């Protein structure tokens, strides 16, 4: 925890320019996009699965190594590192990846076949739905005829109305209207926690 706080202090002073450790000439760039360097070559062969991507259900976890069974029958070994970002309803910590969760992972395929994960999205779903009813902090949704219960998580769930910046106020979501929901699935249920709902208001 102290480590995290130290790190935040360092990063805060770096970005606000109050740090003394700024290095010489190469440090100063312009805002122009060409100053950014080319991304690492990540070109999968046409028709072949992207080697730097994995998806599936977590079947086992041993420390920072995750085993996942892909929906196409492939198995993936995914290595978490200190630099891996984890999303599970919100940006969270590595220990939140649990057995039974579904995940998408992007990273770099190592020579030994493990995927060194750079980003992991756990239980993330993206659904186009009809809002059929609204209860106390719960949205009842219809997705192609299947019922889905969307739990509103105060403090985390956000709403984007008409493409405007997100707000925490979900009260303008209307019964009977279409919406798009990004959320975190609760494994083996028809329930999700709502991260962001896109709706017309």
């Amino acid at each position, binding site marked *: 925890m102290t480590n*995290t706080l130290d*790190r*935040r202090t*360092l*990063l*805060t002073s*770096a*970005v*606000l*320019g*109050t740090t003394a*450790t*700024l*290095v010489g000439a*190469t*440090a*100063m*760039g*312009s*805002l122009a*996009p060409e*100053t*950014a*360097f*080319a991304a690492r070559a990540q070109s999968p062969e046409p028709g072949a699965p992207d080697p730097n991507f994995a998806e599936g259900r977590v079947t086992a976890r041993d420390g920072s190594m995750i085993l996942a069974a892909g929906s196409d029958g492939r198995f993936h070994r995914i290595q978490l590192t200190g*630099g*891996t*970002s984890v*999303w599970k309803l*919100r*940006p969270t910590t590595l220990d939140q990846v649990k057995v039974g969760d579904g995940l998408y992972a992007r990273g770099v395929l190592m020579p030994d076949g493990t995927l060194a994960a*750079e*980003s992991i*999205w756990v239980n993330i779903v993206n659904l186009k739905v009809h809002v*059929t*009813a*609204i*209860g*106390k*902090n*719960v949205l009842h949704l219809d997705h192609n*005829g299947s019922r889905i219960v969307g739990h*509103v998580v*105060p*403090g985390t*769930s*956000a709403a*984007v109305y008409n493409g405007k*910046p*997100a*707000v*925490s*106020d*979900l*009260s303008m*979501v*209307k*019964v*009977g209207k279409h919406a798009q929901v990004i959320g975190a699935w609760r494994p083996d249920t028809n329930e999700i926690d709502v991260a*962001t709902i896109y709706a017309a208001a």
Partner: protein
Amino acid sequence: MMGQVAALQALVIGVLLVWSSYGKLVGPLVGARARRTALKKFVGEERAEPAFRAVGGVELLIGAVLLLPPLWIMESVAAIALSVGFLGFLTYSRVASPDSSCGCAGSATAPVSWRAFGRAGLLLVAAVLASSADVSWSSLPGLAAVVVVLAEVMLFVAFSPELDRHWLLPLRRLKVRLTHPLAGTAAYDVPLATTQHQLLRSGAYRAVNSLLRSDIRDHWDEGEWRFVSYTASYDDRPATAVFAVPRLRYEPDEIRVAIVDDENGETVYRPSLLPVLA
């Protein structure tokens, strides 16, 4: 009174069948509607639309003869046969192709549910009752009979998902207006999604986009700023990109970025167009 209720069944069934046939016969979307039902599997994709239209034609015919005088016993026998056929088809849909639309009534599509079975069952009961009628529905029925039949019609409406938007959704909207179930979500806290939305539209983000290797790794607030960090790589060295985003304002141009080397903590990149804060 039962005799009058029985006589009115021809009117109820007739109206229901004519409404039901409408969605199978009229409009440019009949073919698409037909292919969404289990008929596609039952008679093949090619013949789904003609079969769907044929069912609609039979419904229209039986509905019309039920509504129009004279009174024939054959009318209600045909209605009984049709409702038994509906129940059989619904069972087939449920078993053979559960995802399909029931193609029941009107122009809306609705999946096969217990309500569809309820409606077909009610139709069967009504048709059996109609077969016992000995006068036409147009022979002035008493008030009690009308009340019973209105209750029956309401039951038909309750069993019709196609009609939900006319009564059920307005009722739910009214409930939301009265109880405000999501009012508790309004807060002064700015959601992270807002910060991210602003960040993605900033020049600072575009400038370092190709250096970023991860999604948001950490975020924290300090005064008017919200800081968001990503894993990055700079000159093939592990690094962290950190953005300072105005927390309470939408000012993408004020967003700052720095890239910090993970090993020695040095700031290796910071766009110079941004003024350094003292």
